[in-house]
């Protein structure tokens, strides 16, 4: 899943449009960030990216309808792509469980990407670790079932966004450890600034396994458009990117 997000962040759009071979979904990815750090925007951009890959539909789960479509990250907001994103709004944890447990009963083509925004809202209702583990395990199981339906050589990816708190208590630490057990790939959005007077976010993508860590510099224009650039330290010396993991990542 990291690959779809990497494409969104790397944004050399044209090179990726359609002619690529079916991409491998890769391990499930957890997107972490404080309120307003652009998680939904990135998730939505990933949905558009996946919808443009000539694969099955994309299933986007979130507690309530998006107020407005995120301004995007430069991804073409082609109506054909938008049509392939199926939004569903489970209003409670119970309804989310119901949706995941009965995912194999849903008719129609299996999604090639399953997205969940605002996991913290569903977990807040019942913060027991085992409950959280079952919810997450069911998300993985649902994606695995969709992969099975897609047939050999095709996988359904999974990407979940979780809002982090500024000061994590012991329960949050436990929850994070639990989540990391199930999500080998992670992307962190952290407030940071590469130079004085600049405000923005550092996006760190850890693709899981042996893949290198990559970082980007994310800012929002006044109209809400997300601007993404490679993290400055990497620009001059590409090899330094892999070793720069001292960046205060939790």
């Amino acid at each position, binding site marked *: 899943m990291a690959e779809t997000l990497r494409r969104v962040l790397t944004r050399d759009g044209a090179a990726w449009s359609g002619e690529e071979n079916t991409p491998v979904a890769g391990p499930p990815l957890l997107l972490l960030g404080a309120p307003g750090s652009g998680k939904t925007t990135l998730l939505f951009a990933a949905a558009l990216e996946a919808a443009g890959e000539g694969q099955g539909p994309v299933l986007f789960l979130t507690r309530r309808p998006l107020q407005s479509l995120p301004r995007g990250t430069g991804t073409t907001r082609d109506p054909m792509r938008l049509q392939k994103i199926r939004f569903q709004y489970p209003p409670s944890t119970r309804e989310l469980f119901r949706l995941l447990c009965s995912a194999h*009963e849903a008719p129609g083509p299996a999604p090639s990407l399953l997205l969940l925004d605002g996991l913290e809202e569903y977990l807040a209702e019942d913060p027991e*670790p*085992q409950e959280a583990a079952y919810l997450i395990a069911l998300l993985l*199981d649902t994606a695995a079932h969709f992969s099975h339906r897609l047939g050999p050589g095709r996988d359904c990816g999974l990407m979940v966004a979780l809002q982090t708190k500024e000061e994590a208590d012991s329960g949050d630490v436990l929850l994070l450890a639990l989540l990391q057990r*199930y999500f080998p790939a992670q992307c962190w959005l952290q407030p940071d600034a590469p130079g004085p007077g600049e405000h923005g976010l550092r996006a760190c993508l850890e693709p899981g396994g042996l893949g290198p860590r990559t970082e980007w510099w994310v800012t929002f224009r006044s109209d809400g458009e997300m601007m993404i650039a490679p993290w400055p330290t990497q620009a001059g010396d590409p090899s330094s990117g892999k070793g720069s993991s001292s960046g205060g990542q939790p």
Partner: protein
Amino acid sequence: MAAVLPAVVEQLLSEMAAAVQENARLKFLFGSSATQALDLVDRQSITLISSPSGRHAYQVLGSSGKTYTCLASCHYCSCPAFAFSVLRKSDSILCKHLLAVYLSQVMRTCQQLSVSDKQLTDILLMEKKQEA
């Protein structure tokens, strides 16, 4: 003919020795869970539940008589030991039920049960209700 029998016995003995070694390796890796998991496999306590959709899950009848659900695609068991030792304490990598599922997959000793898609939904949802 006389030479054949000792050869067969020798072969059997070396296979048994390999099995004992495997057993010891399992115990080294998984501690007491290994014996308990092998016991569950012996008693055929593992059922693979599948529905026409292709989705499936495992149910393990624990030694206490309680049934636990294990997911087939990822590491999850609904038993208290999984919640405590694996999730909370990170003392173990898996519980005896999950180990029993993996062993029975290798040994092909699962019981098989076919249910309707709706029934599988209920089985997965029931797990949630039991916890609540």
